[in-house]
């Protein structure tokens, strides 16, 4: 079966994010005063073959821990769907 796993990578709380800071300032200037904070992150889409959903998620998790995510500065969440 084919799956697509989306990996949402965000900077850990407390890690400085100058791009997010600039984006926050920019939307404030546009009048969105209720915005508290914008944090930048990235989203990866992994298309892969796996026996089932659990296996697809397990493989994606492994890839994140081995190379795709830096545990020192980043957190991640996975979202899996069949394609």
């Amino acid at each position, binding site marked *: 079966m084919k799956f697509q796993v989306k990996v949402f990578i965000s900077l850990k709380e407390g890690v*400085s994010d*100058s*791009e997010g800071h*600039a984006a926050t300032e920019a939307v404030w200037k546009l009048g969105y005063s209720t915005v508290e904070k914008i944090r930048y992150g990235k989203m990866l889409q992994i298309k892969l073959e796996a026996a089932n959903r659990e296996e697809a998620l397990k493989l994606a998790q492994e890839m994140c821990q*081995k*190379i*795709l995510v*830096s545990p*020192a500065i980043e957190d991640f969440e996975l979202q899996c769907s069949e394609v």
Partner: protein
Amino acid sequence: MRAGIIVYPGTSGAELVSLVLEKDYGVSTEIIWHEDKITEDFDLLILPGGASFGNYIRPGAIAAHSPISESIIEHAKKGKLIMGITNGFQILTELKLLPGAFLPNKNGKFISKNVQFINVNNATPFTCALNPGEVLTLPIAHHYGEYYLSAEESAALVMNQGVIFNSVETGNIVAVTNKEHNVFGIMAHPDRATDPLLGNVDGRKIFDSILKSRGDK
């Protein structure tokens, strides 16, 4: 003394480091491709600067999974010297030989300029030719230069006297060693400040130290 210089796709500093060591210090060097194994017992390994693998994923992330990593870790475990220059420093953190991680510069820009580094610890093989508190002016050239340490890593680094240089301007840590002081990472280019023709020879102090620590100078 023999030095191995490791090259990844994107590494740009290998030839210069080799030239400095060979011409100025009489150290024989070998340039080693990242897919090869290190078979020789080098005294020093250098991971030069230059965005390995285009800095994709994160600086150093892909390089750290190269076949040569096993040999680098083995070399470190034997207590032999390793120096990581900019991207080389980033690779050493990805290999967990040095603590921390790197974020983009606060101003979001690639910064290329001379920066003053103040020495914090001169009792290491990489700084033993410096006086305590000596200030070196060294060129920096990087986009991911914001060194990040967790509170625990920072406490351990201070306790192990692993903070080697701070930036005079910002006070930030810009060079560190591991607990054993045989693995050194620096966010600057001592290799680019070794010839009077370049108007700056402060980088020589780092190479002087390495040779002094080996009893070669």
